[in-house]
């Protein structure tokens, strides 16, 4: 994503930043057709730009409203606009699972959805589970069983575990393998991830 877009979406309070973002967003057309137009003559109404949309999203119980370029992915919205950086980006192509979050009760790849597409939705990220002082039982289980090595895939693994256990509180190991199959672990901690899922199921029953 272009720097202009980033500047735009991070609040975009300054008029200069807005104009810069707007010009970038409308692209070659405004740049070539109106090379000499003074800033003051450019349109003021941001919402009139069909390439920007105001997104409404509940994330971890908090309502956010933000205008972003239509091309903003959900994971960019979460990490860059909301600064919730617990969700990771590995491949950015629905091929690793690091970006997994829960959208309206289902685990999804936040790298492969647009923020505008999920506007009106309800998202839970890793920050919505526990805190360092009060861990969620799933987080506790991953720590107890060392369900990770480097930890990069872990927030995604934990969000898939949450979706899995919400749907099926007492999975068999085979159920768990199947429902965790959309999260790769480059460190190959799979055996311990599976133990963590099964332990989390027990902790949540207790």
């Amino acid at each position: 994503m272009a720097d202009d877009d980033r500047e735009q979406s991070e609040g975009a309070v300054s008029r200069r930043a807005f104009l810069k973002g707007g010009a970038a967003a409308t692209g070659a057309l405004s740049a070539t057709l109106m090379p000499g137009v003074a800033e003051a003559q450019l349109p003021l109404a941001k919402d009139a730009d069909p390439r920007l949309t105001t997104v409404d999203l509940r994330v971890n119980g908090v309502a956010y409203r933000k205008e972003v370029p239509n091309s903003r992915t959900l994971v960019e919205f979460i990490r860059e606009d909301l600064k919730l950086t617990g969700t990771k980006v590995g491949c950015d192509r629905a091929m690793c699972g690091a970006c997994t979050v829960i959208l309206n009760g289902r685990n999804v790849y936040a790298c492969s959805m647009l923020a505008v597409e999920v506007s009106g939705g309800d998202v839970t990220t890793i920050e919505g589970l526990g805190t360092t002082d009060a861990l969620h039982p799933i987080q506790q289980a991953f720590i107890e069983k060392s369900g990770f090595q480097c930890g990069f895939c872990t927030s995604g693994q934990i969000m898939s575990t949450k979706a899995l256990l919400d749907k099926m509180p007492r999975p068999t190991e085979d159920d768990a393998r199947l429902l965790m199959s959309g999260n790769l672990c480059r460190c190959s901690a799979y055996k311990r991830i599976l133990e963590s899922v099964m332990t989390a199921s027990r902790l949540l029953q207790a």
Partner: protein
Amino acid sequence: MDNFSYARPATLRDAASQLGREHNRVMLIAGGTDVLGELKDHLREPERLVPIRHLKELQGIRPSRTGLRIGAATLLADIAESDVIRQQAPVLAMAAGKVGTPQIRNMGTIGGNICQRPRCWYYRNNYPCFKHGGNTCFSAAGENDFHAILEGGPSFIVHPSDTAPALVALGATVRISSGSRERSVPIAEFFVTPRQDARRENVLQPNEIVTELEVPSAPAGSKAIYVKEMVREMWDFALCSVAAMVTVQNGVVQNARIVLGGVAPRPYRAAAAETALVGKALDEASATAAGEAAVQGARPLAKNAYKVPLTQAVVKRALLSLA
């Protein structure tokens, strides 16, 4: 990813009215799992995306006179888990459950799954091949490990969908709308060979939207399975897959549908394999014969000859599991 215009249409008619006369200027987005990959890799750079997943005309699984009507925006996860689809069209539920991963099935729709673009690495790396409007298929004399062994040429892509072979086996009908005009196309005619149209995989016009799939119930007493062979156990496209549906009465096969995925530019109905089965007992000998018949006429490329015995084995294994 370049930016684009975007506005949620209120109705199917509104959505269709935003579409133009070219395929790539305005693009539909449903689940987006394929579209966003194409946009990020600049395979297509549309001015506008038209979202359709929310449209009420595209929702729901309803009974019909002959079976079920499935809205094109139905999520693959909901198809895999639907009790009524499991009962009436089990091969479709099985195939939907083999797509990608739980996350992809939570995002992707059935309409998108049958309309997805090929996975050919030349296409995905933006080589100017037929699919990009060019006049050549780089796989023909290039890296063709995963390409077509049947119905290939002049393009050698394989159709990547899992649900498509199941829908062909069931004899589904695709409902299509351009807003002002509706039409129904039998699914076997929905997909095209590269000889019919090397640039596209189906008959959908730039101003048309797949709205619904009419899926007849599987014949009474039939058994079905979807088997998918991949490089790894999951999260991949098929090297070869088979949707097999067989009705056995008094120990004899009355009716068989065998449709292959991953080996041809469209879901491939292996008619010779079906013929080889009908009138026989479903056993090792007839399953082997059907496997051999399934690859009749196969013309492997330099690096994909392995798909011939693989397909034979997958067909045989699928059938024996139904015996």
